[in-house]
């Protein structure tokens, strides 16, 4: 396990322990289960999310195995419906929505703005308990036989025709919704009121801005999902007719309420990934982020416009042509902020001193996969083409490219980038680079065939399919094996690094953020001396010169303890 590459020129003097780190400050189960330390809550969330990632991943593996053959032979049709519903429910609400905001965001937000903790520490722990309560509710629904409505719960199927644990699943999602609203409130209050002296709004690192945008969307979109699901519960449990078309109800009403949340939800998942990539790329290119203010306004525009485009999920659902054209127009316009971000990342590399450690490989992989995912969205935004490709594997490929190719890749990149800060240990760079490349190709190999299969007309949520699609399914299933390996490998060597990994100093990557100005892992109160912020973010080289190769010293940190 060489892991140690040649270019770690840094001296390796072991850091003497000035004060106890947050991991050793207090011990015992109660100190974890009753903690109000944002860093510990982040680790609690990370543990819960990993468990749910395995459950959702297992469902995905079974789905890919079933689809290996045209006939529905591994599981019954009923079983397949429950599998993809489970995959959807767990991956959307119990893994992707909280993935970056509640782990990396929870851990880093106070550190990056120079605060001791989040604004409402006890609310932070309460949101974790809400999340675990919802998780138990969902597991109960799963053990009692699962749900077969799809993660979309469309009526009148979910209210009148489904014979599965729709109530339990709907209540679990409402509960996890409250957990995400609690997180949103906490993050917004922290960014507004706990910034260190000197940390103006336009000195905030872009990860803080993206968490801020995500919190806005979480707080404003999630309640409408809770309303929609409570109405489904009212109709299904108490027989109160709200969506029932036989009694005059409108079949599209539920879809409007559901997608008003569910499209902003995909921005909840991708915005933090933007933030992580905007932190990694400048650090490893040793260049200032290109167009900082454009990046900030792009985040805010995405958070705002994200609420105006939900109708592009309903072009063929019977929605009026006028409304479809309005939503189509807004969906084309929202492509612009994403394009700005991709171009800015690319131009940040211009005239840099680029090194390719694991986090950078994940970030570059993100840029490639997200760009392809975003561009295929344009096809879906145009009404006549949407009529052909919606509800087929083209859509499945599109949103997996953005959510898995984008958000999960960025999550792994962020995990590797801040692993020294979280645990005080360096990830083994050789293995990490291999895992990043494996994930990139495993992912592309799994999901690119789905674009072709979808355009050929393979519908979604089919357990059995006409034989001519089999070649694409076989390719995708083979790719899924590679992808599964690429997800499991990092868990292995990161666990290994906890014990045998090289100790990391305060700032192993020579980054400029405030979080790198304190010890790794940081003390309970984050900073021994409250920091004063003197510089903007990402000053990796003096204004009128490029980064010189050898010395990484000319970069100026954001600030430090006086």
């Amino acid at each position, binding site marked *: 396990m060489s892991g140690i590459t040649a270019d770690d020129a840094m001296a390796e003097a072991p850091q003497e322990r000035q004060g106890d780190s947050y991991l050793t400050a207090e011990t015992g189960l109660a100190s974890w289960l009753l903690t109000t330390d944002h860093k510990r809550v982040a680790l609690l969330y990370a543990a819960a999310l990993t468990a749910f990632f395995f459950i959702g991943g297992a469902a995905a593996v079974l789905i890919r195995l079933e689809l290996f053959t045209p006939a529905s032979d591994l599981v019954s049709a009923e079983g397949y419906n429950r599998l993809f519903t489970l995959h959807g429910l767990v991956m959307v609400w119990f893994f992707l929505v909280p993935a970056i905001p509640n782990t990396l965001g929870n851990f880093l937000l106070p550190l990056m703005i120079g605060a001791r903790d989040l604004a409402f520490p006890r609310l932070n722990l309460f949101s974790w308990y809400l999340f675990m309560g919802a998780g138990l509710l969902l597991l109960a629904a799963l053990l009692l036989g699962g749900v077969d409505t799809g993660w979309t719960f469309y009526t009148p199927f979910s209210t009148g025709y489904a014979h599965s644990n729709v109530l339990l699943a709907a209540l679990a999602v409402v509960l996890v919704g409250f957990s995400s609203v609690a997180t949103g409130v906490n993050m917004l209050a922290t960014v507004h009121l706990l910034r260190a002296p000197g940390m103006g709004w336009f000195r905030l690192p872009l990860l803080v801005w993206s968490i801020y945008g995500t919190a806005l969307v979480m707080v*404003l979109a999630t309640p409408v999902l809770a309303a929609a699901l409570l109405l489904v519960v009212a109709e299904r449990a108490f027989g109160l007719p709200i969506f029932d078309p036989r009694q005059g109800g409108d079949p599209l009403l539920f879809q409007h309420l559901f997608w008003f949340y569910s499209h902003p939800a995909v921005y909840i998942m991708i915005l933090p990934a933007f933030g992580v990539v905007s932190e990694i790329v400048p650090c490893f290119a040793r260049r200032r982020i290109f167009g900082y203010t454009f990046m900030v306004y792009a985040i805010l525009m995405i958070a705002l416009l994200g*609420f105006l485009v939900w109708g592009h999920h309903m072009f063929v659902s019977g929605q009026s042509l006028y*409304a479809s054209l*309005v939503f189509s127009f807004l969906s084309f316009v929202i492509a612009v902020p994403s394009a700005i971000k991709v171009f800015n990342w690319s131009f940040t590399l211009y005239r840099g001193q680029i090194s390719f450690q694991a986090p950078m490989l994940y970030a570059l992989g993100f840029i490639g996969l997200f760009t392809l995912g975003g561009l295929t969205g344009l096809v879906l935004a145009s009404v006549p083409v949407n009529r052909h490709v919606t509800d087929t594997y083209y859509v499945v490929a599109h949103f997996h490219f953005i959510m898995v190719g984008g958000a999960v890749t960025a999550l792994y990149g962020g995990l590797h980038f801040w692993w020294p800060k979280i645990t005080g240990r360096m990830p083994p760079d050789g293995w990490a680079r291999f895992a990043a490349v494996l994930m990139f190709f495993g992912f592309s190999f799994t999901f690119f065939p789905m674009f072709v299969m979808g355009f050929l007309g393979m519908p979604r949520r089919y357990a059995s399919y006409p034989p001519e699609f089999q070649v694409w399914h076989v390719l995708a299933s083979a790719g899924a094996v590679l992808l599964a390996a690429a997800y499991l490998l990092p868990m292995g060597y990161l666990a290994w690094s906890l014990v045998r990994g090289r100790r990391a100093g305060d700032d192993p990557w020579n980054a400029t953020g405030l979080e790198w100005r304190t010890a790794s892992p940081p003390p309970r109160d984050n900073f021994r001396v409250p920091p004063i912020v003197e510089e903007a973010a990402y000053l990796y080289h003096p204004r009128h010169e490029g980064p010189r190769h050898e010395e990484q010293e000319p970069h100026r940190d954001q600030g430090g303890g006086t």
Partner: protein
Amino acid sequence: MSGGEARAILRRGLLTWAGLLLLLLATLALAYVPMGWLNLPVGLAIAAAKALLVALVFMDLRRRDLLLRLAAGASLLWIGFLFLLTFADLLSRP
């Protein structure tokens, strides 16, 4: 001193309360006046007036800075998005 302050708090509260009662009586009376499609908008306008009164005085928004007022009013804009685009579909169906 505390007696005076208590009286000030009570006076301002009762004044606002009286205003709210007046609006309640108004909306109740107007509900029985046949105005065709106008009944609903009038009822909602009065309800909005009552809500504004509660927000400004009882919830003390009138003595708060711009940031808190924005935080208070922000959700109304998003409710507007929800209604506007849903009715764009509903009203233009064939």
